């Protein structure tokens, strides 16, 4: 039997803004097992990004239970969540979110540095990762010297830096042309084949169809799986 990586039970996320309550997630329950390739789909405002933040330990639920790799996270402090993120989860964002002042290799090395690795060791592994995605000649380039597709590949390398089990991708092709987008998806699929659990948030039906499992959200609720 496969290991359950994520288990959400009756999860609610409610935001209070100026006295108005917004229910971003309503009574979500789901399980994701090790090695799955899941697409979370839905219109904008459906709660898919909020769900990804909760799954990705960037946020905690207002109510309900979230268990990540056997650990209940809903009551954890900031630093405990950060430790889970850096060890178990790699993030890929739509806007790449690389740090402008650092080179490609330094961006990739950053999570390793946070995990206690030395500078030389981290940079060495960062360069290996960048080589794997065909960016060996771009290691010393700053993000603004790279194309969108290249930046996203750097971001994927950063996500892989600490060799996490899970890759969480939030609209990873959203800011890319179709060719670069296809390359990124191919890379994701390759990672899935190598055993990573991929959870991808997207509103692109074609992308979602390539996943083995789809979770569709509407108004903060799962409407079908």
């Amino acid at each position, binding site marked *: 039997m496969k290991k359950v990586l994520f288990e959400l039970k009756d999860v609610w996320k409610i935001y209070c803004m100026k006295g108005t309550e917004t229910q971003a997630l309503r009574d979500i329950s789901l399980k994701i097992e090790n090695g799955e390739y899941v697409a979370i789909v839905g219109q904008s405002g459906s709660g898919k990004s909020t769900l990804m933040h909760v799954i990705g330990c960037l946020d905690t639920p207002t109510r309900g239970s979230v268990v990540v790799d056997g650990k209940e996270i809903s009551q954890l402090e900031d630093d405990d969540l950060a430790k889970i993120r850096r060890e178990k989860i790699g993030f890929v964002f739509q806007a790449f979110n690389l740090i402008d002042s650092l080179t490609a290799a330094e961006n990739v090395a950053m999570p390793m540095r946070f995990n206690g690795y030395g500078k030389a060791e981290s940079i060495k592994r960062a360069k290996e990762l960048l080589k794997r995605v065909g960016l060996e000649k771009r290691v010393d380039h700053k993000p603004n010297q790279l194309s969108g597709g290249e930046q996203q590949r750097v971001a994927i390398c950063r996500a892989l830096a600490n060799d996490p089990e899970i890759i969480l991708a*939030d609209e990873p092709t959203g800011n890319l042309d179709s060719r670069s987008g296809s390359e990124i998806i191919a890379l994701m699929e390759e990672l899935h084949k190598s055993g990573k659990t991929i959870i991808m948030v997207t509103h692109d039906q074609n992308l979602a169809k390539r996943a083995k499992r789809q979770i569709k959200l509407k108004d903060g609720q799962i409407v079908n799986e």
Partner: protein
Amino acid sequence: MIDFALKDLKGHRVRTILTGLGILIAITAIVSLGSISAGINEMVTSTTSKVGSDTIFIMKTFDFSEMSGPPTSWQISDISQEDVEAIKSLSGIKRAVPVLSKSLGGIMEVDAIDIDNLDIFGADDLTFKEGSMPGNDDQGAALGYTAAKILGVGAGDYITLNKKEVEVMGIIEEGYGSYDLVILLPYKYGEEIYDAEGEATQIMVEPQDVSLVDEIKNTVADEFEGLDAMTMEDALSMSKQMTQTLDIMTLGIGFIASLVAAIGIIITMYTSVLERRKQLGIMKAVGALRRTIMKQILEEALLISLISSLIGLGISFVFVDLINNVLLGGTKIAVITPLLGIGAVAYGVMITIISSLYPAWVAVKTDPIEAIRKG
């Protein structure tokens, strides 16, 4: 991860310079002013320690109404020949040595004294760079190292005192504190140069016994109107008071300068944190702990403060050199002691770190979700 901090500082040069500027100015002010106080202290201590603590000075009571212009041009009026003789014959006195001191309108001073009694000044151990000390019957002068440098003369040359040509017979070696600035004359020759027969600006009195010091001081105060008597200790405590005032001034200016610097640091560091919300949020999203973020901001502060404090210290050294060598022609009136230098740098670092605590706390509180929102 000091390399991250360094990279960030290099990437924002103007911001970094602005943050450090306040500390640079504060440290320069503190060290420069402090160096003058330290220098005066050192000079007073080195001069007075040579004179016995039971030696009594007698001089005219300061009349402030007579003083005009810069303090260096003040001339202390002479004690009359009659009073000099009367003091010499007081009971309980081992010896009374009259000294005729004349300011040259600058930082130099002429002292005419009985050469055989130089030890009462603590000046009997002077060694000479050129020539030698004139004897009591000689008509010549011995110049302190700096005085000779300022006047640009050597042994055998002539200088003008009170419109009279005086031969330079010897130049004293450097490093005798206030003697570096003195022109020494044999007392008799001084009387002649200044037309002041039997007069003195001060009388150095050595009592027969330490226990008689107070009695002699009281007798002078009671019997001689317009004369003051004080011991070396009294003089020392007076000059201590003066340097204390200078110290308080240094502290006051230093405090205000560092307050301004601290506010500057808080503003620039806070703005820098706000500007970097996205970067800090990304760092948190990919697993930076709160203390990692705090450490990075404080490391930046440490680097900025160390560099600016050291530059400030460097500027102070230039300032001290200007004061000592250009303005005063080689007198060590301003001195940067190791304690002052190291203390000021440590203070600069401390102020910066403390001022950066709030911006660092704001950085720690950055919400990663807000920072990584699309776009």
